[in-house]
Every structure is written in structure tokens, then in C-alpha cells.
């Protein structure tokens, strides 16, 4: 892949969008991580927030310390001669998941639509390693991909009002786990007992952009043993 030519765009009084790529690709990640590292080093305490997403970084600087021209110059300097972070700085996670219709109400309908058996659908979802592209929506909600083309499924036409924490779902070619109870429109396949966001966790969020994730099928007994809650929240609407 060729070196990205970042475009620096005005986002607000004290923020720029740094556009590194035009399309979603797992190969973007080493560049995105390198850019993040450089920008954090360059800005130091004058950096307020850095929000990576699939192809962009939103950089929010301290407007009492820097004016827009200075910030833009720092960004340009930090992104010059970028080289990808080859050593995988992201961590790997295994997320034990109980795939079952009682906690994954879209498991059977999705398998049917895809002309797959449920075990085959589970096998295909759990055999891939996914990359965390971005966090957003709710604290600790990680957008991961890419799900294989054959499992891709559009969001529900009507989002559910309540989704249980730990629910594992698919939307288009992305997969994610809902960290807290929230509304949502992803296709739910199962549930993990693992906590995703906790102020007692180092770094607060289990998953960070750049991490890699694999889902590991477990049965109900193991799910309960690991502290999972099997209340079928999604059917109680």
C-alpha cells in the first residue's frame, strides 16, 4: 500500500479532521496507529482528544495554548514521513460467546436467510479474527471487521429499544458487542459474559482501536459460570 497523503480539514474552532484514507481497509490500521503515536508525542499536553475512526482521526487541541495555524503546522510536521507501525501494538482478545436464540434472537432468522445451519453460521462468525476500527456509539462499543461477505446483514428496519449488555451482533460487514444496555439495530447472535467497559479496568475499555478479537463459542453452563446473565431482554419489549 502506498503512503497515505493526509488531508487536514477544519472540524471546529479547536479541532481538525485528519483524513488518511478514503475507504475502510484492515491495511489502514498500522498507518492510523503510527499517526496517533506521532500526534500524541508532538502535541503533548496541548492534545485534548484524539478520536480514531475507520479512515480519519479527529484531533482536538487546547485552544488556550495553540492557535489554528500553529496546530495545523504541528499536525503537518507530525504526519510527514510517516511509516506504518509494523509491530502489532494492539492486543489480542478472545471473547467467549454463548450463541443461542434465547440471547441472540437473530441467530436463527439470519441463518435461514443465508441458507446456513446455525452451527455453520456460528463457525463462520467465530473462526475469523476481527480488527477494532473505532470506538463510539456508547463507551467501549467497538466497531470490528470485517465479517465475511456471506454473513453481512443490514441493520434491523426498526431498532430494538433495549439490548442486553454483552450482546454480540452483526451490521453490514461489522461485528460488535454492546457494552451497556442500550437501544440498537444490529442482528444479535449471542451474548458474552465479559465486561467491556469498566472504570476499574486499566484503560477503562477492554477493546481499543487497533486491537484484534476472536469470538469463542461456549455453552450455557460456561456462560453462567463466567458470570453471564441469560435474561432474554430483547424479547421483553
Amino acid at each position, binding site marked *: 500500500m502506498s503512503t497515505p497523503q493526509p488531508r487536514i480539514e477544519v472540524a*471546529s474552532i479547536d479541532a481538525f479532521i485528519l483524513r488518511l484514507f478514503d475507504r475502510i481497509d484492515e491495511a489502514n490500521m498500522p498507518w492510523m496507529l503510527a499517526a496517533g503515536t506521532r500526534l500524541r508525542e508532538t502535541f503533548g499536553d496541548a492534545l485534548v482528544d484524539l478520536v480514531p475512526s475507520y479512515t480519519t482521526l479527529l484531533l482536538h487541541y487546547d485552544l488556550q495554548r495553540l492557535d489554528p495555524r500553529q496546530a495545523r503546522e504541528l499536525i503537518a510536521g507530525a504526519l510527514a514521513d510517516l511509516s506504518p507501525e509494523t509491530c502489532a501494538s494492539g492486543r489480542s482478545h478472545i471473547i467467549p460467546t454463548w450463541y443461542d436464540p434465547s440471547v441472540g434472537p437473530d441467530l436463527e432468522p439470519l441463518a435461514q436467510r443465508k441458507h446456513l445451519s446455525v452451527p455453520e453460521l456460528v463457525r463462520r462468525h467465530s473462526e475469523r479474527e476481527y480488527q477494532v476500527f473505532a470506538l463510539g456509539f456508547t463507551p467501549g462499543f467497538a466497531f470490528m471487521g470485517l465479517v465475511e461477505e456471506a454473513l453481512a446483514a443490514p441493520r434491523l428496519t426498526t431498532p430494538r429499544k433495549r439490548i442486553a449488555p454483552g450482546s454480540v451482533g452483526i451490521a453490514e460487514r461489522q461485528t460488535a458487542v454492546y457494552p451497556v444496555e442500550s437501544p440498537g439495530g444490529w442482528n444479535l447472535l449471542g451474548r458474552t459474559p465479559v465486561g467491556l467497559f469498566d472504570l476499574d479496568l486499566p484503560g477503562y475499555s477492554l477493546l481499543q482501536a487497533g486491537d484484534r478479537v476472536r469470538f469463542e463459542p461456549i455453552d450455557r453452563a460456561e456462560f453462567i459460570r463466567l458470570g453471564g446473565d441469560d435474561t432474554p431482554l430483547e424479547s421483553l419489549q
Partner: protein
Amino acid sequence: MSLVIDNSTPFILLQDKGRFGCRHLGVTQGGALDWVSMGWANWLLGNALDATVVEVGLGAFSLTCQRDGVLAIAGADLGATLDGQPLPAWGAFRVRSGQRLEFAHPRRGVRAYLAAPGGFRGEPQLGSVATVAREELGGLHANGKALAKGDQLHWQGDALQMRDMPRAQTPDFSADARLELILGAQIGDFSGQSLFDAFNSQWTVDTRADRMGVRLLGPKLECRTQSMISEGIALGAVQVPPDGQPIALLNDRQTIGGYPRLGALTPLAAARLAQCLPGATLHLVPTVQEAAHQEHRKAVAGWWNV
């Protein structure tokens, strides 16, 4: 104990300047929507400008003082009274134990800020006590809940000062708001007619307005880009979904999103928008980053020069 809450609503929230350094985790900013009025409420007592305050949204809030002291209010005129006697919308005042402070309903503006010596006590989470119900973060009990009947508020120190509000600094929330908007990257994707309409039409604040964002009703804006790959969203970003009605995103906005944007309101404009009730009319005024930045620094310096 310093104050006991007798009556409250979901719009009565402990706030400060909000959470920073955690947007990459999906954690929203939060914080006082009208940070200017929060600053003045604290200034009146000689507090740090971002000391913890109560954001009183719309009124229907009352509390009883449990000790003598000094409090201050700034922002919206919600018909505040102390033992039934009207209080000015902007100012510091003495309270005695047993007295009852009441905020009735909006007369001008939406949100009043109640400050106390040294700020109200609360347990910071990720560096802030800002209350965000959706994320179950912040507030008096560190669970994202609004202040409720029976809650007890404590203040942290003694009033250093009781200042008078400089009259020239008091904003007029009854006039049409003129909101400065910094032109953003997708500005060229909007049709010429839409750009003309955006800055030459009167906009009305929709009933769909909360701490996440405020929807504006007016001419339908047309953008070549219907949706984009999700990216970080700055404070005040004005996004335009396919229905063509812009949404100005405020403190509790989600951290990333994928609608094209006209640009972003300045922080001063975002604060002013937070004082607009549904049905209020406003105008968008284009500006650029450098000019807005100078304006902002001037406004903030004003606190130190009065």
C-alpha cells in the same frame, strides 16, 4: 449538609466543564451546555470558572438551605425566588438555614446555573462530575442520575467573594440568536441554493432538542454526500441527515457519526443555542476558524478584565 432537594426533574444535573481525553473510548464530553453562564455563576462567587454547578433545566426545582451561606445564579431567568421573594436572574445572594430556594419555569432562556462556594461536591469519574444519564456516568452518586428529591448537596469552601454582575456582560436571551458557524470540510458538497438558504433563512428550534443535539427547522438543505464513513464529531458540529434538516450537536453527542456537516458552531454559539426553547428563531452566520478563535479568546479574557 448544605442544601436538601425538595423537588426535581430529569433536567436538573450536576455539571462542570465535562470529560476530556476519553473520546477515543466512546465516552461523550458532557458538561454544562451553556458554559458561559456556568462561568459567570462561578465568577460571581470568586470560584474557578468550571467549579461544579447545578444546571437547572426549565425549572420545577426547589431546595431548602441547611446552613447559612452565599449562592449565585446565572443564565436563564427561571423565575427564581428565595422564600417567595424574587431573585435577579444573574447575581450572588446570601441564604440562611431554613430558607427555601425555588426555580419556577422559563421566562427567558432554558438553563440556569446555581453555584456555591468552591463548587458542589461530587465524585469525579474520568476527571469530571458531569452527569450523563445515557452513559451512567457522573452526578451526585456517580451513576449518571439527575438530582432527585431528598438528595443532599454540599459545597466545598467558603465564599471568597460576592461580586456584582457587570451589566454589559449579561446576554439577552429574548432576542433572536445569531449563531456563528465555522465552515467545515463538506461545505462544497452542499448545493449553492442550500448554502444561500443556510445563512439567509430564519431557523426554528424543533421540539426534538436535548443535551445531545438540537434539530433546526427551515429550508431543506441538499448535500451531494448522503452518508459517509463514520468519523469523530466535534462540539457544535452541524450535521445534515438525508431529510435536509440540520442538527447541531452539543455536549452529550455521540463520539462518532456519519452524516455530512455544514461545519461547527463556535463554543459561544453552542452555549447560546442551549438557551433556545423549542419554537425560538435563530440565524446562522458563517465564519472561519481563525476569526472565531480570536473572538473566543477575547470573550474568555473578559472574565479576567471585568
